[in-house]
């Protein structure tokens, strides 16, 4: 509102407004993708992440905040079975190795072990 109660001047077409809008536009010049490709990326990334991080999935399933009755039991069973397979393949070691390396970095002191 202006002081007179009239609608203020619309500045959206002016050069400073366009310049400011361009500065705020994060996406200008970025590369678009098709939604199908994104869906494949997300699906594949989910499977890979689930293979490398199966323990966290089990933890999540156990701590689900909903009362889902028997479905909850199925989810827990499925996640534990999946985690068992990944352990058998040794893939759960990737997550643990990264975690250990980071913990070492966290507690490292110059002159220490």
């Amino acid at each position, binding site marked *: 509102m202006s002081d007179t109660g009239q*609608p203020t001047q619309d500045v959206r077409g002016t050069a400073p407004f366009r310049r400011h809008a361009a500065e705020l536009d994060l996406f200008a010049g970025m590369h678009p993708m098709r*939604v199908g490709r994104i869906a494949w990326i997300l699906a594949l990334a989910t499977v890979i992440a689930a293979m490398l991080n199966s323990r966290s999935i089990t933890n999540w399933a156990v701590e689900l905040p909903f009362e889902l009755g028997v479905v909850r039991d199925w989810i827990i069973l499925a996640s534990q079975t999946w985690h068992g397979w990944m352990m058998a393949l040794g893939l759960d070691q990737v997550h643990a190795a990264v975690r250990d390396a980071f913990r070492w970095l966290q507690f490292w002191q110059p002159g220490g072990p």
Partner: protein
Amino acid sequence: MLFPTFDFGVFFLLVFAVSWWLLPRAELRKAFLVGASYFFYGYWDWRFCFLLLVSSLVNYAAGALLDGTRDTARRKIIVAVAVAMNLGVLAFFKYYGFFITSLNDLMFSLGLEREMPFLEIILPVGISFFTFQGISYVVDVYRGHVAATRSLLNILLYISFFPQLVAGPIVRASHFLPQIEARDGEGPKPDRILASLGLLLIVIGLFKKVILANYLATEMVDIVFFDPFFYGAFDLTLAIYGYTIQIYCDFSAYSDIAIGVAALLGYRFQRNFDQPYRSESIREFWRRWHISLSTWLRDYLYIPIGGGRGGVWKTRRNLMATMVLGGLWHGAAWNYVLWGFLHGAAMALENVLGWDKSQPRRALWKRVIAVAAVFHFLCLTFIIFRAENMTIAWDYLSGFADFETPSEFFSPFILGLLVVGFSLHFIPHRVTSAIERTFAGLPLPAQAVVLALAIVVIDACGPDGVAPFIYFQF
């Protein structure tokens, strides 16, 4: 529901799949996104979904009424009532306790003790954000900057869209409504999704929140601010540097993830942070920090109360008023008011000294000094912002005179977090573009592997559990 959790990951994958499947039916897609957004909000406390609904209905009705009349006096009344209702809800939920406590204290100091009706009110998450969005819609319709939408679904989605619902960015109706007003088959273009940058923003946001912000908070900042009396100048300095980096990483991470998630659903949000700690003045800082709030305050508060019109003193007064109210927006406590006041005073001082004017490029050493001075002013004011109360803030400030207490927190890890957090401010934008371009050029399986590895590494490095985002409380 917090972004860096499995719950959100599962929720988002489902929403992504269903929303794109519903693309040919625009109204159904919007209805689904509204439902998903209410589920997202209700996951925290379902009762406040009604508040969200009432806010949307009030603003929709105000927009429709404004659209139905050309009478200036009537339009003024409609916009005033709508803004008052929005602010009334915000005042009740956010400021009632603060008002009653302050009034009690005042009456006690005057010897007029009275039992004031005190209510324990839960602050609904994100109320400051969706209230400001509602106000911007009504005022923009009044000003003629945006047409009133005839679809209730559009307003429901605009107010509740889950990526930005609880901690921003504060999206303007003029920016978002045109993106959702499409008819069947005219919605987001499924072959034009800006997903490379969206995914990059999500990964960067997760890194900033899960690693930088969380470790700085749990390993140092929360401990020191709990009782700063026990720490010396060195640890207090480290901790306030830590908090300054933490709040940036925490809040900008939320914005990054929100913008990235919205992009994957086909919507564009604008930049909300632009390397704020490289600012050479406080005015510049507010052009780079929480841009959607600072521009909101500029357009709906500073300019309507006079802005730069009416001489230098009125300009400074308007700056002060805007910043004090901006401070109060962050929380119902006197430390936020003081924080806003200090920022307003600094901007008024810059105005007096002419530092806020556009200047030719300064010499490098002058710029370094200006950046350092602004950064340390921000650190100082963040002590007041972060402290639970003014006593703790005073203990903190007093501790800077203690050079004898040895440091407990100095370690290569803490130093590394600070350096990485601060360095993010000096990475040129072209680097982000180059990473985005590289990622976009990878074959599909490689893109999936990179994304999965990034998420697994961040999860493995992060501490157990994720603290809520700082700006949830605002």
